[in-house]
């Protein structure tokens, strides 16, 4: 991401202002990405947990059937 934002060319803005904006945008974007990655990780965990629970329920049902 740093590479991405550093290559922007800001028309009519001097280097100082440009750097400031770049820094601000870059920090905000990285923060957003960090949050999103965290959320994706959690989403994956929840979905995995859902499937695991379903598998568990299915196994239980089969086990009960076999016991009968």
């Amino acid at each position: 991401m740093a590479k991405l934002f550093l290559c922007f060319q800001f028309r009519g803005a001097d280097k100082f202002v440009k750097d400031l904006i770049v820094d601000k945008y870059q920090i905000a974007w990285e923060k957003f990405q960090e949050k999103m990655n965290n959320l994706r990780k959690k989403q994956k965990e929840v979905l995995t947990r859902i499937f695991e629970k379903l598998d568990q329920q299915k196994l239980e049902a089969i086990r009960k059937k076999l016991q009968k």
Partner: protein
Amino acid sequence: MDKEQIQIKSKESQAEEIEKNISPEKTAEETREEMIATSEKEVAGFENEGEKGLQAAEQKAEVDGFEVGVEDKTALKELDQKAEVAQGELEREITPNELPEKEKDVESKIEKANIVGITKDRNFPGSVIIKTENAEGRMMGYAIRKDSQGNLEGNEIRYMKDGSIGPVYQLHESSFAKLREQGVLEAYENIPTMKDRSAQVPELLDKKEASKKFLAEEREKLAQEILAERKRRREKMQTLKSELEKTGKIIENLDDAAGDSQYGKLSEMQSEEASATAEAFLSENGMDQQEAEDEKDNLEQLIENSDGLETIKQKLEAHYTKADSLAREKFESIQRSVEQTALRSGVFFVHTIQENERFRHNELSNVSSNTTYKDDASILLALEPTISASSVFSGRSEDGKVSGLWSDASGFLLGGGDIRYASRNDLDSKSEGIKKRIVTNTREEKQSIEDIDTAVSKRGEMEAVYVEHNGVKVQEMGTVYNEFIIDNPKVFGYYQSVGVVEDKLFADGKHWVGDESTKYKYQELSRMKGDLDRIKSDPDYYPITPVSQESYDEKLSDFQKKITEYKKRFEEMFSMGNPLYVMDPDRNVYEYLGVNDDGTVNIGRQLTPEDVATGKAGLPVEKRKELGNNILKKAVFKEGKTAKEAEEIIENL
């Protein structure tokens, strides 16, 4: 789809996407916009992934006869909300601070908010939520209420794309000035509510109390007549006294009349006493039978004819008979009211409006066929015309019967009115003007309270009735609903139906828009969506039921239309001043709190007939005038005399 197939975009792939989309030539503003657009896309992708995963899990669960846990579903939803919050924060962080001049400029250009709905939500007790939508389609809500001192307070609600509640912020004092300029506060303040009222308790007064309460003027006049007559009588009795004194007898305590009603009786006794005295005196003086009879007649005539005692007695009797009859009439009229009947029998009185326009306004109707549902509601609320209604019990009878209604979709709960006629079956009534409704095949004599209660007691059963056709009575099967002709109806609130899954095996405890078919439609859509997604990732997959994108889009559009219309109808009725409720198939009534995109309805407290019979009912006069004038402008009445009657009702409010 299986858990291994869940595709989660990596940080790298997102970055690549941005790099591809954003040109190095862009300005800061363009870059900012690109970042916002990309982040929104990313959040949407995130939500989509979660939804796809959940759908796959639900499908799998359905196949095996299981269910995905509510807590897991909620966890996914919360993650969606967090993603939206993160996106919002990014947006705020990269939004440049405006120069003061520019800020001033923006402030002066505060635009009116696009208000798309007014609703309630149990998460915001005591608040009315004004929903708005901005140009980008983002939904915002303002939950506004008043504190104990009457000051405004509230919250700003950000809605998620699926309509659920996202981040919520406290509204500060300064925010209200902006909300006023945007027209949000105006919408809040202009919501009319039904009028307060004090319930009349039926009490049968005795004739004296009734005379004081209902015939005060006549009572006063009669009292003056009695005083005058008493004076005359005193003079006459003085003559009689002189006559009796001549015979050596004095009637004592002649002037001690105990009261108005006793006066006649006392005088009668005195008359009898006078007769008996005369009889004794005359016999003692050796008069023969004929002479004695003649003398007795003379004395009695003196009392009877000359002083008008009988007239007073009759007037008193007539007065108290009238007072008694008025007391009974008043007592019965209160007992005959919608509210007292509802309290006595534990029922809701419901006036339904047909959704189907063809049935709603036929050739017998007094309004034209282009009268809308909203117009019908306006007529009811503004003019309080004589209408027909049915009573329903909540729940089922022991043998499983449910109270019937003419139309199951929607209607009004009546909190007041006067029952003019009651029948256990459809009365085949039709309106003639506004305050008149005629009924065929019924007797015109007044019904007793017992007759009304018998009609109320009906619950769903169909029974034989005698109907007259060309002078011949024939037996026909009646209806499953009863019918009441109600004068001056007072609306308590508006309801639409909700469906519940009745089969205990499949019951989900949810309330669905309109009826339970909404659930099955939603399930079918989920299945179709799941199949379409799977076909995309696995071209060799053939679902059991064939599915195409076109058929899915068509069904989705129908489904969304149904939900939107339901929601809009509630919003429309709320803006007219109606509190909102839902009724389930067993006639249980609950507070309405909102509709979700999956077709489920959020409900609040269950309502009792007592709540309706004693709560606020009927619109305030100003709102009735406003709605009434709008109806008059629209010229919906077929006949001029009906329009004139409507005009007079509005004028006399």
